[in-house]
């Protein structure tokens, strides 16, 4: 069914009781051409583009709980492509372009709101670094604007720009086309789009084992029985290592906790996404008026889906130092996600050493904005059995070959990326 003003009017007449379900909940078939493990944004987007771009519709997405209940459901939804290294810049820019047309493509309002992503500069070194990154972005065809102090002050009036500010602000780097989107809507939109093209989305179906015959994967053992597969792709984020381990593979991934906090809703006060790399804090205001804040990972391996207090205190302290008016707000919610942190801070979308087994992981802090691009590239990699040029650098063997893509230059210490 196409959502439109007419379908809305028609359903208003019946008091909105007759809307069809947006996707089915079928029982799994015994065999699929492609099985995707993990029903987060990435898994669902992969299934959608497999069907839409490659005509592969005999596909199942297996999700152990409900779709979108993993990291996709708890992040701060920032969408941007302000990367320095070319491989990342091109990939994330492709993803951003998909975001720009996503609501129309999916016939589902994903509430993408390009209100600008502003990185603050607190030191002269920050300013120089931003000039370098901004120029690199422009060379890659990405929008970037260097703002001076008065421009930052007029764009974000609530920032502490006083001479005694705890973190003095000298300027900033703005990506005007960046912004935020609604996480649930992205999940539901991709689920509905994939389902309407024939993809089976299977809830409450945990993959517990992977059946192999030599170098080939035959299918997956699940809580709903064995499901045969021509090809298997992992999009299990936090549990990438656990699922790859079922096939006997080790990944260059560690799982780390990252928390987001949400305040009580207030009137519009912040019409940009504001981030500071120096104090590791990132703030935006949701459409409902809540301030949404996050910071760095908790700092040690974790699968716990809840954050720790020292990091919470540090991140809130940084937010209040940047925006003194926040000190009056109460936090309503805390959400803890488990990040698939890669060894160089960049993603992996690649074929593994097994013939028909593919992996999509290593999304660190930045996987929400990647959702469309990741699904698009992963679908291409699975369908064609080779990467698209946009994800050709995101291989597993780049670590062996010494071709790490390390924006931060932190080396194989995932908790520092």
């Amino acid at each position, binding site marked *: 069914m196409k959502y439109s003003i007419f379908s809305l009017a028609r359903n208003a007449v019946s008091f909105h009781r007759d809307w069809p379900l947006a996707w089915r909940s079928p029982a799994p078939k015994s065999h699929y051409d492609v099985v995707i493990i993990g029903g987060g944004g990435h898994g669902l987007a992969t299934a959608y583009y497999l069907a839409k771009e490659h005509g592969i519709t005999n596909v199942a997405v297996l999700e152990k709980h409900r779709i979108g209940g993993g990291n996709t459901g708890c992040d701060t939804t920032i969408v941007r492509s302000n990367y320095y290294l070319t491989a990342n810049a091109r990939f994330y820019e492709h993803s951003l372009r998909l975001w720009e047309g996503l609501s129309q493509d999916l016939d589902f309002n994903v509430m993408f709101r390009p209100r600008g992503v502003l990185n603050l500069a607190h030191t002269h070194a920050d300013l120089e670094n931003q000039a370098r990154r901004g120029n690199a972005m422009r060379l890659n065809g990405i929008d970037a604007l260097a703002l001076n102090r008065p421009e930052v002050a007029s764009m974000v009036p609530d920032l502490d720009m006083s001479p005694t500010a705890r973190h003095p602000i000298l300027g900033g780097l703005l990506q005007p086309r960046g912004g935020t989107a609604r996480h649930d809507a992205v999940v539901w939109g991709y689920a509905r789009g994939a389902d309407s093209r024939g993809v089976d989305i299977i809830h409450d179906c945990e993959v517990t084992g992977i059946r192999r015959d030599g170098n080939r994967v035959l299918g997956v053992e699940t809580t709903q029985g064995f499901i045969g597969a021509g090809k298997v792709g992992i999009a299990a984020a936090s549990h990438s*290592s*656990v699922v790859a381990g079922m096939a006997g593979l080790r990944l260059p991934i560690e799982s780390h906790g990252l928390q987001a906090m949400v305040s009580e809703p207030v009137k519009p006060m912040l019409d940009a996404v504001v981030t500071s790399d120096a104090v590791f804090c990132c703030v935006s205001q949701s459409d409902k008026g809540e301030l949404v804040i996050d910071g760095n990972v908790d700092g040690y391996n974790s699968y716990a889906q809840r954050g720790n207090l*020292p990091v919470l205190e540090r991140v809130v302290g940084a937010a209040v130092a940047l925006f003194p008016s926040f000190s009056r707000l109460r936090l309503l919610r805390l959400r803890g996600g488990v990040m698939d942190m890669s060894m160089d801070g960049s993603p992996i979308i690649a074929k593994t050493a097994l013939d028909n087994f593919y992996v999509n992981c290593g999304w660190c802090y930045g996987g929400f904005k990647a959702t469309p691009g990741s699904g698009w590239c992963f679908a291409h990699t699975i369908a064609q059995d080779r990467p698209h040029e946009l994800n050709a650098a995101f291989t597993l063997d780049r670590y062996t070959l010494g071709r790490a893509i390390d924006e931060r230059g932190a080396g194989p210490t995932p908790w520092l990326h």
Partner: protein
Amino acid sequence: MLLIQCPFCGPRDQVEFSYGGDAGVPRPADPAALSDDKWNAWLNERDNPAGEHDELWQHSMGCRRWIGVRRNTLSHEVVSSWALQPAKTA
């Protein structure tokens, strides 16, 4: 909040410590003799278990010694901790 037992100083709050990563991957004795694959397996690949995990911590705001800690990554329970090198006697 973690309470980590420093073998030298006793139970201390996690904010006194810095994390040093997986302790289950001993540094190869002769790195130059390794193939690229073996070096990569040591440098980058991890078991990353959902459960008990051996890890390195430094008591950076205390005695500054590196210690080993066994901790559960699902419950955050600190199971045990040990000294990596014998304490120097005065």
